[in-house]
């Protein structure tokens, strides 16, 4: 029997989830526009469709917990508390960016928020997360490290090396797979011998579960439960969040490898309208309230674009900064 939302969370929390998901969605859509205008260059991987994962999992963690992500990382950084203005400026390559405009879309980093980076090398974050968890355990700091990654990265050696180590030494890592079914254009079943990804942890004796990554409440509950389990027992755990990206792998990917009908089916499971429907049905919010929130998000995104546009480029000399002390 499904619980009502009110029984699970406060009104404020629920509307907060809605607002964060809308903010991320609008931010990403705005990025697409800025990319087509040439303001954002290089490679741009949008999170559109996957918002429930970042929002739900971040809410299920404590602020002191670490989060690491792959290169589709804007939403994780923003939900963690990075100012959208600074994130947009980073994507533009401006001096006011989150990382001084030198790293761009794939390399967001905000240690002050315990956001320990987006990683452009697929699977690069696994061993680093393991090492961070080692540190927190050794120094007896009560902290869980949440390592987010895509389905494709589970075929990298670092995945196996890190899961083995995390269980061998029992480290507080929460592995969260964002399974959006495609590593660029290759479907999970064409790349993974075991397509039920959560089952791949048995070899490392790490408990795992599959969660509806299109449902922010489910994502929140699962992460909260798992994070507390990891915290208490100081042992790794694995969540497979089943989700979908509505856009291509990157802006240069027309996503011809999947049919429009497949995408249409997934769009009926869009996490944002699904939450708003429930909020309305249960009388937690009115239509006007939700529209107000959406407007507020749009205004924040517009403000972030304006900020990025008006910000200065880094000085040439900045190229020499932050290499050695």
């Amino acid at each position, binding site marked *: 029997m499904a619980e009502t939302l009110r029984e699970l969370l406060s009104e404020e929390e629920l509307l907060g989830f809605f607002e964060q998901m809308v903010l991320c969605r609008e931010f990403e859509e705005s990025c697409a526009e800025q990319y087509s205008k040439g303001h954002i260059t290089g490679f741009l991987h949008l999170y559109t469709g996957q918002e429930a994962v970042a929002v739900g999992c971040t809410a299920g963690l404590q602020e002191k917990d670490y989060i690491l992500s792959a290169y589709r990382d804007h939403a994780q950084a923003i939900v963690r508390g990075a100012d959208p203005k600074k994130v947009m400026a980073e994507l533009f390559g401006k001096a006011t960016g989150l990382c001084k405009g030198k790293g761009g879309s794939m390399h967001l980093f905000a240690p002050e928020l315990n956001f320990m980076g987006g990683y*452009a090398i697929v699977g690069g974050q696994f061993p680093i997360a393991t090492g961070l968890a080692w540190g927190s355990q050794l120094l007896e700091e009560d902290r869980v490290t949440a390592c987010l990654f895509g389905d494709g990265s589970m075929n990298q050696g670092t995945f196996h090396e890190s899961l083995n180590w995390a269980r061998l030494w029992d480290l507080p890592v929460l592995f969260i797979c964002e399974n959006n079914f495609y590593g660029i254009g290759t479907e999970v079943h064409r790349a993974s011998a075991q397509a039920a990804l959560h089952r791949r942890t048995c070899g490392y004796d790490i408990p795992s579960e599959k969660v509806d990554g299109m449902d922010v409440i489910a994502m929140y509950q699962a992460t909260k439960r798992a994070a507390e389990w990891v915290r208490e027992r100081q042992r790794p755990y694995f969540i497979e969040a089943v989700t979908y990206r509505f856009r291509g792998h990157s802006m240069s990917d027309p996503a011809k490898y999947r049919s429009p009908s497949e995408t249409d089916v997934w769009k009926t499971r869009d996490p944002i309208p699904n939450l708003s429907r429930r909020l309305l049905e249960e009388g937690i919010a009115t239509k006007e309230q939700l529209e107000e929130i959406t407007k507020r998000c749009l205004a924040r995104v517009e403000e972030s674009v304006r900020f990025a546009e008006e910000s200065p*480029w880094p000085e040439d000399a900045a190229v*020499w900064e932050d290499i050695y002390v």
Partner: protein
Amino acid sequence: MAQLNMVQAINQALSLEMARDDRVLLLGEDVGRDGGVFRVTEGLWERFGSERVIDTPLCEAGIMGAAIGMAAYGLRPVPEIQFLGFTYSAFEQLFAHAARLRSRSRGRYSCPMVVRTPYGGGIKAPELHEESTEALFCQVPGLKVVVPSGPYVAKGLLLAALRDPDPVLFLEPTRLYRLLREEVPEGEYLVELGRARVARGGNSVTVVAWGSMLERVLKSVEGYDAEVLDLLTLNPFDSEAIVKSVQKTGRLVIVHEAAKTCGFGAEIAATVAEEAILHLRAPILRVTAPDVPVPLAKLIDHYLPGAEQIRNALDEVLQY
């Protein structure tokens, strides 16, 4: 003759060799159905099938290692790594095994594979997607490192690499993929590995460059009596051609987009110092990127060697 860009020229070389030699096969992430990140292998999966154009899981070390096994078995694998920065996780397989298989088996096995990867800066992407760390790969004996500078040489060099009995790292300058078109013969022709090409004759200074820097150097030397050598193969490199040119001009400027420290320019400078120091009328100068990771956006213009820096170096050696 058809005017082709480098993507088309490389695609044609692969297609020709796959038709000629059924041991040649391609493998990599999305090289098949999707045609590769830069669409270099487009149409080959349809033509040659999924057994010869293989979409692999996302695992660079696995791709590289599987290619070694295939090569040892007598096939001619052509692994594609999506960006040079992604080869780092496959470094062990390439460095410790591919390059050394001939030596380790005391000549009984060779490792005829061609690792193709886009490389270099200027596409407004950040680090790991704009790397030019070619010198790292020149340090290991047994691996050949080839860098084309345009469509014509790309096709001829790739065909030569595909027929070479040893492993070749084939670095495709990303900035050039669709930048220039050249006349490219439809049929097969080879551009010999290990030989530099005189891209422009001259008498008063030798400029050595490769990859995407060649185009920039040729534009920058207008008005100078400069001889420009397009190195084409970095390992083994054509030291003879460089020494011969320096003996004539007495001056040497090396231009590369990699960082300066331990860049390949250092190897060239050392070789010229060993073999032709008494012919030099000025110090050898290197025009390179700074010793920092590749930055994003506008800073890349400051990072990559530009015309002004190249001309400054030419003026310096000419007025020395």
